[in-house]
């Protein structure tokens, strides 16, 4: 069970808002880069987020660049999952490869600051603040197996191959 507080963002949170190109020189210094996570969307996010918290977006979360540093620094901030109405393809795949769940659900029903409980196995999101229960879309089996291993690197270390 994942538990934490909601940091709510809008539609179209691009990878440039999560980890901008002007900080490209920090990409080989991940702890330093992580201090800037989502800086251009909310400059106070990095200092307020606590382990277990959720990043909740609207539609098309993570659009733009293929930079895997985007889900990577969100995970490094301690975020337990990203929730969105929809996610961009590369971001979604990168997040799973980093072991960060991206859950597709109707995030209009979730408000900033809400307390959530997410049951990855049952596929449910309980909003303890407003009492609602949301169901998130099924993660494809091939990606679920990668997520279960904690990402693509541990998966390949274990199996030495890609199995679908």
């Amino acid at each position, binding site marked *: 069970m994942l538990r934490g507080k909601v940091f709510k963002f809008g539609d179209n949170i691009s990878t440039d808002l999560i980890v901008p190109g002007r900080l*490209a020189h920090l990409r080989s210094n991940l702890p330093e880069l992580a201090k800037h996570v989502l800086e251009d969307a909310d400059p106070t996010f990095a200092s307020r987020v606590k382990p277990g918290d959720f990043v909740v977006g609207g539609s098309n979360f993570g*659009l733009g660049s293929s930079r895997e540093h985007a889900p990577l620094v969100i995970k490094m901030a301690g975020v337990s999952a990203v929730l969105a109405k929809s996610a961009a393809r590369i971001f979604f795949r990168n997040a799973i490869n980093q072991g960060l769940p991206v859950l597709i659900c109707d995030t209009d029903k979730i408000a900033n600051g809400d307390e959530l409980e997410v049951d990855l196995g049952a596929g449910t999101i309980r909003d303890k603040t407003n009492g609602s229960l949301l169901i998130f879309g099924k993660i494809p089996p091939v990606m679920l197996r990668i997520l279960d291993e904690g990402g693509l690197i541990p998966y390949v270390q274990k199996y030495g191959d890609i199995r679908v």
Partner: protein
Amino acid sequence: MGKTLAEKILSQKSGADVKAGDIAVVPVDLAFLQDTTGPLTVRQFQASGLKKVADSKKVALFLDHAAPSPRSELSNDHMLLRSFAAEQGCMLFDVGEGVCHQLVAEHLAGPGEIILGADSHSVTAGALGAFATGMGSTDVAIGMGLGKTWLRVPETIKVNLNGAFQRGVYAKDAILYLIAKIGADGATYKSLEFGGDAVTGMTMSERLTMANMAVEAGAKVGLFPSDEVTKGYLKARGRSTKYLPLAPDTDACYESAVNIEARKLEPMVSKPHSADNAVTARELKGTRIHQAFIGTCTNGRLEDLGVAASILTGKKRHKDVRLLVGPASRQVLLDAMEKGYVQALVQAGAVILPPGCAACLGVHQGILGNGEACLSTANRNFKGRMGNPESYIYLASPATAAASALAGEIVDPREVM
């Protein structure tokens, strides 16, 4: 049931009869990385326990995003990539060779191939009929290590582009129009497949511009048929053996279709901060700009510099507009010098940047000041993209950028052509 281009390529490569929605495991014909995603790719490869890339002739590294490096940290990243390429025997395209996507098109990609790039604009090679898609560092690390990857076979949106473009209207205007029509997530997870008589008549340069921006509608690939234009492009680069004709089946099953009449299109401009926020250039007349940037993997090819030169020859940039020109590759720069385009552009007041990504992504070479606006021929205008979240980026064709550089404000290029 017939097959779309995506289904055809993935069936052929996986050895199974796959259709949209299936998962295919396919061999990787080319895996590539660049200097801002590459260091993580190398580290993930090392972490995976894989020792050697599956086939060093199918792996390429490009130093293009920060080129030449503006900072010691990025210089160290370049050193890491150079030493990985040397140790593994992979291809290396060093600083000054050009943007990865242009070099992939010029030197490496072929129809029907599976190409994975650690860069979202890897879709560019779809112009040659390659199933080319952008992935993150880890996927590319594993793809080059195992020599294969998994892909969900995408549903396809057919884009039918018919008729002739008006003078002053280009492939860039067509793709901006399409993205505005279907939205920045209008093709998420899907294949955009281009067809119609306007596509048949399009040069490879124009096809590359359109395929390049497929990802701005969320698409996994932007596929063109492989035809006489593809054959001619490969032949001119001594790569005739790569040619393979490729077309979708006439009874292929499409999720939806978008029909565009080329003659009705006008010069388009995407307003800040999204590519799908496009309107006609006419509607933005009078919008002040401080910088015009002509270049990138979207519009930094010879034809693009030629259009800009034809508008700027014998004229001067507006005194309050910096005019930056970034050729997409060394070959483009050499050809543009040969044709006199560089001379004309420099005389008009342009700064010629080294072949590479240049000002596109906010690492160097043309970062905007607070409140400034740039009219760029690149593919992205997200907030902060060009290095400053307090600035504004408009996207347009090289003709619109050149005409606006003269006027000091956004104009419809047909006014000066």
